[in-house]
């Protein structure tokens, strides 16, 4: 098998806020034999906000990230869906518009950098589902998660825009389900799993954000979910931190622990809840973990 090694781009959120996602990913990757190499120079992708500010600035700053990965000779692995979407859109534009690549390189040259246009951006989820492979993953599970009923929550950015991302199907996604099944969990299907968690407007129109979060959680709960698993730290922030606010706003009890993808994998690989930083969540997972 080819060596799995990636330029690791955890994203700002997982470095500063959802630190448990970052540390769990490192534990899990190590166990699975996936090499993660640090990118000490990498700047923030902009989370979409740089795109709002100035398209050229956004493209060039993302090209700077790609240039570092290119120097390392690896594809990028991120654990943040928003980073994935933002970087993939930039990579897609740079690949398909040669004039844009030239223009961007002119600016990069001022900083002594160059990007040739061939870096691929991947999510941990894709690496598990594809590069490592479902069968291999399943074979390494030591503590199957059954009979845990887990609801996958993709959110928006791990699936759309599908042309720039080029992985999975936004209408009938399979990767997260396949990974969860490999871990021995029972997958719960529900309507909101590919919709928005509301994070992008948390600080702009907070009520909207809370209502979105609550709707997704209730959807999953109604279908019998005992917990939610998401590949995106921003979705995690909303689903976890805003859960009590959502309970109030919607007048319903929810109490659904939310896990990062890497934490779920970690549990099935035999790591403990404290190894995986579960105490950092606002909604306690203790009840379902004790079983």
């Amino acid at each position, binding site marked *: 098998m080819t060596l799995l090694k990636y330029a690791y781009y955890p994203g*700002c*959120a997982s470095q*500063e*806020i*959802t*630190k448990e996602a970052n540390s769990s990913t490192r534990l899990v990757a190590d166990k699975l034999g996936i090499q993660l190499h640090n990118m*000490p*120079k*990498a*700047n*923030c992708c*902009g*989370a*979409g*906000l*740089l*795109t*709002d*500010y*100035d*398209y*050229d*600035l956004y493209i*060039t*700053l993302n090209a*700077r990230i790609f240039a570092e990965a290119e120097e390392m000779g690896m594809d990028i692995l991120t654990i943040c869906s928003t980073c994935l979407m933002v970087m993939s859109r930039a990579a897609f534009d740079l690949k398909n518009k040669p004039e844009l690549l030239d223009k961007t390189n002119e*600016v*990069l040259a*001022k*900083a*002594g*950098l160059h990007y040739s246009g061939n870096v691929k951006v991947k999510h941990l989820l894709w690496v598990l589902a594809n590069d490592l492979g479902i069968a291999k993953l399943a074979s390494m599970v030591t503590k199957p998660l059954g009979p845990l009923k887990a609801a996958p929550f993709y959110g*928006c*950015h791990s699936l*759309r*825009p*599908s042309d720039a991302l080029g992985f999975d*199907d*936004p*209408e*009938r996604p399979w990767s997260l389900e396949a990974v969860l099944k490999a871990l021995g969990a029972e997958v719960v299907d529900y309507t909101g799993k590919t*919709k*928005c968690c509301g*994070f*992008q*407007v948390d*600080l*702009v*129109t907070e009520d*909207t*954000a809370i*209502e*979105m979060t609550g*709707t997704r959680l209730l959807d999953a709960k109604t279908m019998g979910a005992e917990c939610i698993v998401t590949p995106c730290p921003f979705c995690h922030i909303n689903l976890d*931190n805003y859960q009590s*606010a959502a309970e109030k706003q919607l007048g319903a009890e929810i109490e659904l622990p939310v896990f990062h993808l890497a934490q779920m994998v970690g549990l099935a690989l035999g790591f403990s809840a404290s190894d995986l930083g579960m*105490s*950092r*969540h*606002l909604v306690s997972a203790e009840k379902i973990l004790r079983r």
Partner: protein
Amino acid sequence: MKIDLKIRRFNPTTKNGREPYYQAYSIEASEGMTVLEALMSIAAAQDPTLSFRRSCRSSICGSCAIKINGFTKLACSTQIIPEHEKAHEMVLEPIANHTVLKDLIVDFDPFWKKLDKVKPYLMPPETQPEGRTKEVHISEKDAEAIDHAQKCIMCGSCNSECNALEIEKKYLGPAALAKAWRFVGDVREEGGRKRLGRLSDDHGIWDCVRCVHCVEYCPKGVEPLTAIERLRSRAIQEGIKDNHGAKHVEAMVNSVKKVGRLDEAAMTFKTLGLLRSLGMIPFGLKMEMHGKMPHPHLFPQIKKIDEVRTIYAEIKRKNKNAKKKPKG
């Protein structure tokens, strides 16, 4: 090949139709048959009371958008056999975020009203500049900037899928904003600044939650989100920053310039202003207890931050130069 369909029926004027229900039909599908052709054959041969909109049958009139297996598509540009193979079912429903009038027909009035709100026409200067006698030519490059937004056929697919509209009915929505960009981005337009002011108000450009659904489901490649991003950039350039959205963006831009990455605490503060930030304290405290509140001072700077700053300076210089050049 036989395909079973389930179609959502509703007719408020009849006793049986007052509550929406799903009706089963079955058709003989031939290769290349579209969902619209299936609907037309049902209406012609099985059930003439089934109502849906259609006209051109070639994805240009924008009448036939419906939900096909849960996602909004043009019935006339979706082939039934591959779609059925993928979804293993064929459930047809009216588009979302609109009031259903009958069966697959929805009320488009709010859609048109929102379009009206963005004043979907060019507003050239009231008096022509001295010496201008001929029509104004628009260069290929200038046309390219708004080209995607011109392709809209007003089918409503984007509004149907829009996650922000689902929660906030007053939001202008992707279709109207794409149209707004078509004019704001036009070099012949003079009312741009005024428009941007209005668009930055409540339920305008800053309501979008960046869910990317509009990009995914537009059958014409309009990319309304891209249009919204451009409108936001223009609004900020024009100095229209007295709103949470723009402040949020500026905080991010400064934060990346300063440390190379996001500093969430600074963003919360700058976006919401002091008052809101105080209001957020309970939430902040809760995060703090779980070690989640990032500390702005502890933010490690990325390596080679000077490269980032060089890029900022260079882009700024380029933008300035571009502005100096005369229009058109």
